[in-house]
Every structure is written in C-alpha cells, then in structure tokens.
C-alpha cells in the first residue's frame, strides 16, 4: 500500500511538472537569458568577470552610463561641474532616489563608496586603475559629491563608470573582502531576487527606477557550460536570449523565423594578438630568460610576416567571417580612439618574400626554410598559445601554412595558461605567442602594454621599447583636451603599427540572438552588441 502511494505521488509530480509550462492565468513576464558564464562574485570590489559587471549594471547605478556608441551619459547626478584646473569635480545627485530596501539614496552613499574603493587595498582592480588620481571625496549637505583629484585627467567618465554605488547602511558593517553580497541591495532598474552561483541569477524589475523602469517583470540569467546546449536552448525556446555562442551557429539560427541574430563589436572588445618576442637579451629584466629568436628583433622579419598573413582567411576560418581585420591593440570597438586612418599591410607573398630576400634571409640549405643572414640558425620559431583556447590551434595551422610560403617554419605547441604566463613575461622565454587582451573603454590600459616601463612588470609581452612612444604615453595620460589626446593616441598607434610590434589578426565580433516571439523591442540596430548595456532588457516588452 505504502509503495503504491509513493508511486502515485511520483506520477503526480511528473504530471504537474509536465503541464507547468503552459499555465493559463496571467503569468509574470519573465525574460530568460542564457549565458556561458556566471558572476565570479557579487562583491563589486572583488569581481573580475563581465558577467558580474552585467549584474552590477542592472542592479546598481553609477555616476555615468556607457552608451553603445562609446559615449557617456550622466546618470545618478543631475549635473557635473569641474573646476578650472580640472582637479575638483562636483556632482549634484538627484533627489528622492531610493535603495531597493526603501532607504533613501544620498550623496553620502556615493562619497562613502568612492572612499571605500579608493582605500581598500584588497580591491586592487579598482584602486589600482580607476582611483589612483582620487585625492578626497566628500559629500555635502546639498546632496552633492565633491571629488578632488591629485591631478587633472582627461577621462573622468571612464574612471567612474565602473564604480558602482553601494548602500552605506548595508556595507558599513560588513567585512569588505569576505562579503559575498548575495542579497545585493542596489538602486538600479532591477532588484536581486535569487542567486545561485553557477546556476542562475534571478532579478525582478524595479518599476520605480528614476530613469529606466523595465517593462518586464523578471529577468533570469541561466548558466550553460556547454555552448551547444545554449544554442539548443534558444532554438527550443528554453531561453529568450543568448549573449554568446559559437559563430558557427549564427547561420543556422538566422534561418529560424522566431530568432533574431545580431552581430557587432562588443563594447569592451577582446583583442587577439600574435606576439613577437623582440626583447634584446641585453635588456633582460630580472628573472628573465630571454630566449627569443634573434630574427624576431628585426622589423623586416615581422613586416614580411605581416605581409604573408591573410587576415581575411583567418577571419573566415576561425570566426566564420564574424570579425574585422585588426591593426593594433586598440580595437575598432573603442570608437574614436581607434586609428582608422591606418592602412593595413596588404597580403602579398611576393612582397613578403622580397623583403626577406633583401634583408639577407636566404634558404641556403634548400630545405625550404630560410636561415639567418649569417647562416647560423634557420627561421624556425616556437609558436605557443594557451591550451584553453580552441581557436588558437586552428590559427596556428593556418599561420604555419601562410608563413611556410615565405620560408618561415613554426613549431606549434599549446601551453597551459599558467605555464604560459610564467613563460611569457617578464621571462620572455618564447618566440611567438597567440594570446589576447580584454580592453577597457579607455585606451590607456592597452597602450601601456607597449611601454618600456611595462617590461619588468610583466605587462609588456613583446619587450618593445621606444622612448618616443613612452613619452607620448605620458603625455596622453594628462592631456585634458579630448581632440589633442585623441591625436596622441592615434600617433602612438601609428608608431607601433609601423614597427609591427604585434600582428593583430582580427577584432572578433559579438554574436547574440533573441527570440522575438515572446518579447519585442530588442535593440538590434546598433553597431555594437553588449549585454552589460542594459537598454535592451529595460526596453523590451512581452508580445501581446
């Protein structure tokens, strides 16, 4: 009897679950987003991953909003004033703002948060890069925040945009490093409802948000460790949107009439780079091994290789066409900072061969591989990449073929990412690497990579050193005039492009897909695609 009961219950449970999908009554409008990741932590001081920043963007507010075109809009403050010397900024915070828990949101919270970010050494990602120029931050009784800088900087918006404002009344009493912030009291357009790390994040709408009240009721972000499953999920309607997927899926998803596919540069694009170790062993930093092939220090070699690189084929095969040829570390996704005046080295094997011939690299022993002018060593380079990259091996195959055509051979070898870090910099124990950088909206970070100063710290992967470039770098950091700074940045790009410091095969595009049968209003007409831009989720509404 007992057994039978249990069985009945099980059957009932299955039956219930089977019909739970299509309930009749007015269901809340829930947007399901599938993504391949999950926030690493919800503590804004400790977070690294984009997924975390996406949630911050939705749940918190910050001083500025970053728009899809790369421009900034003032968000929390009604107005921002800067002193004439550019060191004192005064932000007037909107009145009547409220935290999700009902407490009033004031300038005090803002000032407290900025001080927290600035003074907590365990938040190195923030105070190491975004707050180094902050001197003092104070709140005034007029609901104003006064930010005093140590020196004038040109890019205050990009410094503030990722500094999310935390509720002082919650954060005052917690351990700043250990706090996991799962409850996440914020002020943004969505409220945290439920969070299970690596499973899902469930947010409910904050319909009272001052600028962007969402039209849907809930957003659920679900983690898919398997990209094929993700594609399958949007196909079968288990999710309404996917933020990333294999490029291969694009074509077939496009064919689905209920799915709209968007391709564009990401807001903070990733850069794939082919890195040449050009460090002269004489300048070997402390702890360095500096075993780079001497030929790579010769610009002719690098230039010839640039001419022998068919970027379009790389884009076609590796990205299925969803990307643009790259020039320098500054991607086209950075908008104005991207030097669009540069013309890429054309793919021309004849020219490449010519360059090598002229420079004295000849194939003296007839094995199809050129030797150094003194005949000492063949042009055989070790090619390494982090073993967690699935695209790099394909790229290495293609590069081996392309460069083989100009008498350069490669010894391809995947390396554990940690081991590669150890091998890379500042050890300089490699010849060529395929790796990548993630970018910041401001070009400064990526430009730093080329500086001489970065060689011993490990940020410089190439060992490139050019005093002229170093000086320009310092200048752009303090140039307040936007146009003038942009010119310097462009000039810097020209220098490193001419010196062929890297070969940047491409800037990859972001591919996202939306189901249009349940929600409408997705932003699909922008040049860029980014989930951490919240506009879509705020704008969409259920299909009637």
């Amino acid at each position: 009897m007992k057994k039978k009961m249990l069985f009945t219950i099980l059957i009932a449970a299955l039956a219930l679950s089977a019909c739970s999908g299509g309930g009749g009554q007015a269901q809340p409008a829930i947007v399901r987003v599938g993504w391949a990741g999950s926030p690493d932590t919800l503590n804004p001081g400790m977070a690294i991953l984009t997924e975390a920043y996406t949630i911050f963007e939705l749940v918190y507010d910050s001083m500025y909003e970053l728009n899809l075109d790369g421009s900034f809009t003032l968000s929390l403050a009604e107005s921002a004033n800067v002193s004439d010397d550019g060191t004192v900024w005064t932000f007037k915070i909107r009145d009547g703002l409220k935290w999700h828990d009902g407490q009033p949101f004031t300038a005090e919270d803002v000032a407290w948060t900025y001080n927290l970010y600035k003074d907590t050494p365990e938040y190195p990602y923030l105070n190491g890069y975004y707050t180094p120029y902050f001197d003092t931050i104070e709140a005034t009784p007029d609901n104003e925040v006064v930010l005093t800088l140590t020196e004038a900087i040109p890019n205050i918006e990009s410094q503030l945009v990722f500094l999310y404002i935390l509720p002082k009344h919650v954060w005052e009493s917690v351990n700043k490093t250990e706090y996991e912030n799962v409850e996440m009291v914020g002020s943004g357009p969505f409220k945290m409802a439920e969070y299970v790390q690596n499973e899902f994040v469930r947010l409910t709408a904050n319909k009272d948000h001052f600028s962007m009240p969402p039209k849907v009721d809930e957003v659920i972000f679900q983690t898919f460790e398997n990209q094929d499953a993700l594609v399958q999920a949007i196909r079968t309607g288990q999710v309404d949107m996917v933020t990333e997927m294999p490029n291969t899926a694009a074509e077939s998803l496009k064919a689905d009439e209920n799915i709209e596919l968007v391709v564009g540069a990401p807001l903070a694009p990733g850069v794939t780079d082919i890195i040449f170790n050009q460090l002269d062993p004489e300048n070997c930093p402390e702890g360095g091994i500096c075993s780079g092939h001497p030929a790579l220090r010769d610009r002719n070699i690098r230039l010839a290789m640039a001419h022998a690189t068919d970027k379009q084929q790389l884009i076609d095969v590796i990205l299925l066409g969803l990307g643009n040829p790259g020039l320098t570390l500054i991607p086209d996704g950075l908008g104005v900072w991207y030097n669009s005046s540069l013309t890429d080295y054309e793919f021309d094997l004849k020219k490449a061969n010519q360059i090598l011939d002229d420079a004295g690299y000849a194939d003296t022993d007839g094995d199809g591989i050129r030797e150094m002018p003194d005949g000492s060593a063949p042009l055989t380079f070790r090619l390494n990449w982090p073993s967690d990259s699935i695209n790099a091996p394909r790229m290495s195959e293609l590069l081996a073929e392309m460069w083989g055509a100009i008498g350069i051979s490669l010894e391809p070898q995947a390396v554990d990412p940690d081991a590669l870090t150890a091998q890379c910099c500042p050890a300089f124990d490699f010849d060529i690497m395929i790796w990548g950088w993630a970018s910041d909206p401001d070009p400064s970070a990526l430009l730093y990579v080329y500086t001489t100063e970065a060689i011993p710290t490990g940020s410089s992967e190439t060992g490139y050193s050019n005093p002229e470039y170093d000086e320009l770098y310092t200048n752009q950091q303090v140039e307040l005039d936007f146009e003038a700074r942009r010119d310097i940045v462009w000039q810097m790009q020209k220098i490193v492009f001419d010196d062929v410091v890297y070969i940047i095969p491409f800037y990859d595009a972001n591919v996202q897909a939306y189901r249009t049968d349940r929600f409408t209003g997705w932003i699909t007409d922008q040049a860029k695609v980014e989930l951490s831009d919240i506009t879509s989720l705020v704008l969409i509404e259920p299909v009637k």
Partner: protein
Amino acid sequence: MNRTRAVLRKTAWSFFTIVFVVVLNFFLFRVLPGDPARAGIRDPRLNKDAIEVIRVRFGLDKPIINCFDSLNPVKVGNCAVNPLETQFFIYAKNLIQGELGISYHANRPVVDILGERLWNTILLIGVGQILSIILGAAFGVFAAWKARTSLEYTAVGISLVAWSLPTFWLAILLLFWGSTMGLPVAGKATPGMSSLPLLQQWGDIAKHMLLPTLTYTIIYMGEYTLIMRSSLLDVLSEDYILSARAKGLNTVQILRDHALKNAMLPLVTVIAINLGFTVAGVIQIESVFSWPGLGSAIYEAVIRRDFPVLQGAFLLIAITVILANLLADLTYTYLDPRVTVD
C-alpha cells in the same frame, strides 16, 4: 576477534592513506609553474602592489614550508621563518578547522562552493549508480542464466558497446536527442521554480535529471552487466549449484538463495573502486548538461586553473573514495564469511 582486528586494521590504513593524500594534495599544487596570483588574472590594470595584495590575500606570500620559498625551482629560503607561518602549516590548520582556502576565481571559501555542489553530485551519482547497478545486475543475471542464447549475446553486445562509448560523446548526442524531445538541456531545475509547490519542484528536477542520469546509467550499466555475468557464470559452474539442484531446488530458488549473494561479491569491490573512476565520467556529464555539481566545478576549475577549488575537490573525492573502499572492504567482510584477517 579476527573480524574486529580486520576492521581496525583497514580503518587505520584508510586513515594513513587520507593523511598521505592530504600532504600530497598540498605539494601537488605547489609545484605548478607561474604565480597563481597572476594566473587567470592577466590584467593590465594590475600593478605590482596590486599583485602583492592578491598574493597576501591568498597566503601566497608565505614560504611553502620552512626554509623553502617555493618548490619550483626548489631553493633554500630564510630558515628564520616561524614554521607556524608557513603555507603548509596554515593549510593543515585550516583543514583541521574544515577550511579549504578561498577560490581564486569566485572569491568564496572553497568549502562553501563544494558544499553546495556536493549534494547535486550525490543526487546524480546516487540515482545513476542505483539505476546502473540494478539494470546492470539484472542484465548480467539474465545473460549468465541464459548463457549461449541470443539473450546473452544481445546483453553482452550492448554492454560492450556501452562500455566503449566516450562519455562526453554519448552525453552530447543525448543532449541533442533530448532537446528535440523538449527536455531541458541545462541545470538542475528551471530557475525561479523555488516559489512553486514542492511536488512541482521535484518534478522539475526529475525532468532535468533525466538526460544526465540516462548518460550515466548507460555508461556504467555495461560494465556492471559484464561483471555480474562473468561472476555469475563462475558461480553457476560451482559444485554447490549442482548440489543445490540435486537438492531439488528450482531455478529461481537456486539463483536467489545460492548464486546471487556469491556473485555480488566482485560487484561490491568494483562499485567502490569505480567511484574513483566515476569522477572523470561525472566531470564530462555534468559539464555537458551544466549540472551544478562537483564535476562541473572541477571542469570550471580546470579551465580557469582555480587551484584551491581543484585542490579541495581533489581532497574531497580522494577521501570519499578511500571511505567508499573501506566501506566496500567492510561490506565484503560482512558478505563473505571466508574473509578473515590473513
């Protein structure tokens, strides 16, 4: 007396193995190249000071053991360091307090991460093991009983094929088949179900479990079938089966009362040993089906080189396997009266 002794000795040995694993576990992850503080955090925004902050946070600024700064390459450091301040001592101390360090990636105690995922894996393995054992044993019994019939050839054939399947390959094929059948392809439950009645939640979980469990069952069932079959074939050729038949017992009675218990013995050992090998399978299944268990935690940790998590999971699994083996040994002692301390 003998049995108590055997139990004691086996328990003691298991304890020593655990201690060994604990120590090995520490050094294994310390011989790795590179600086964990920088690994996976390749970020131009970090300056030297910031890196130092991270190293301090993860306790990597301390010497590994007294006199040795690092193991790779081994070099003699400052012997004046208080041994209590070494990484090894801190690791041991934390371990005793039930702490496994902080995840490089998730900024959370490893214990919390593993803790919440452990149960999901136990659920998956539990159901999968039970199903595969029951089905495998049943097929094995039929195959042996009906030896040299098409029934046996079918059962053995299917089992051999199942045994030969790469786990993740089967998982991905099932995932595609399942998704066309409208089955969920990821996760343990539909997010946001927690407000629904318990029954409905269970049903939802059951639906999510279907594909991973099926994969698991297929992969391991084959092995159990083969073992059960060969073990039962051995038993059925024993003289005491003949004497049971001579006693007038019918086939069912013979199988039930004389053959099964004896034939189960090898299976018990294999099940316990299998737990260790299951890890690789669970990693593949969980990561294909995004099942939030230990396996996918390990997979992510491998991808992200999140060594504290890997180290914790490693320890957890090793200890589980050691205990499972101990349990199997003791079960064996219980099941087979012939086992005494030798």
